[in-house]
């Protein structure tokens, strides 16, 4: 079982280069509204997360993920 905080920290680190607004990150932070990412940024970020954790986040799954917390949970589930 991966430590949730470790995964959160890693995800936060990956968000860093794309966090142009310098928004605070918590489980409730949303990609669309708080980070204001467009679809291209999402694509680049998803690719970075996939490569970091060696997982696949399908577009079907991406449609369900709105917050950083949901992404962390998905990463843990996919990696287990």
């Amino acid at each position, binding site marked *: 079982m991966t430590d949730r905080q470790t995964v959160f920290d890693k995800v936060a680190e990956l968000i860093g280069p794309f966090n142009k607004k310098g928004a605070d990150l918590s489980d409730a932070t949303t990609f669309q509204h708080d980070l204001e990412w*467009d*679809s*291209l940024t999402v*694509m680049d970020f998803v*690719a970075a997360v*996939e*490569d970091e954790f*060696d*997982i*696949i986040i*399908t*577009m*079907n799954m991406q449609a369900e993920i709105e917050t950083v917390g949901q992404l962390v949970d998905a990463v843990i589930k996919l990696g287990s």
Partner: protein
Amino acid sequence: MTDLFSKFDPLIQQRENLLATGVRDPFSLVMDEVKSPTVAVCNGRETILLGTYNYMGMTFDPDVIAAGKKAFDEFGAGTTGSRVLNGTFRDHRDVEEALKEFYAMDHAMVFSTGYQANLGIISTIAGKGDFIILDIDSHASIYDGCKMGDAEVVAFRHNDVEALEKRLKRLPPEAGKLVVLEGVYSMLGDVAPLKEMIRVSKEAGAMVLVDEAHSMGFIGEHGRGVAEEQGVIDDVDFIIGTFSKSVGTVGGFCVSNHPKFEVMRLVCRPYVFTAALPPSVMASSATSIRKLMHGSNKRAHLWENSKTLHKGLRDLGFKLGTETPQSAIIAVIMPDLERGAMMWATLLENGLYVNLARPPATPAGMTLLRCSLCAEHTAEQVSDILKRFEIAGRATGIIS
């Protein structure tokens, strides 16, 4: 009551803002007269067409028109029915024969449009529990095909072989996989590294579908497309194409050597639940396809045009979508939508029509003036085109 249209407000606003700058609406052009594959009358002005997909100039080919007229007289105006009921006439079969000859493949299935060919084939062959792996810059019809089906969809970075390979390796080895690629990507006119992509796809046990809409007729020794050009057409499971580009009519198709391919006619809903194309369109298409098999002189001239235009635009200082001319599409990158629309309108005022393309159709949020050449553009027209680009480019300040 919630107005269901309120979700479109930002787009309506953007359009109003654009029109408020005084430019002509780029998305409601009317061609009042079409004189040839390369010339039309728009707003009362004779205009060179550089934004059609009439790559091989077949729309006015006398044999193509004669075949259509004959079928019109003999078989009537329309089919009024599905291909699987009363909508398969002699010429529907014949055009499928022509496609089998053209591609040297065992099976061909004609749809009412290229959009429906992608929609139908992709949504039908990749089902629940299967995976579709596609290039992020795929055409809308490919994405819509994915959305209509029940497969899991995995995207990879445009033309990135390593990104594709990594994702294929992460998928369950036993799962059904369909890799969807395009020969020529229509926005920038760039060609895919199909040889490498198909190799990694086959190594991962995936089936491969290649959309060759923008390459048919002039890329590859027999005009079969980029997969033929790169020597990997035998490893492609499904080729999707269209009649609305090089063939010069309308319709879409899939060709394949899969031994069970014919079952598609029974299970593919966008094939079954729509009316078959008119017989005149089928007869024109069959004639056009067979003529394209012998079109090597036209092909050579099209490539010359592409090279001349690419070099000329570059020398004028325009920023282009590709370093080298890779297809019959040359995309000129505009700084933003406003200036792109201004440049587009200025070109039109100077008697030149190109496509204005903008997000979401374009990658990376770009605004493009997309030029697509025709084998019937004369060298003189290409030189005229460059002059008009120079005039409009300076007038709008896009080049100095």
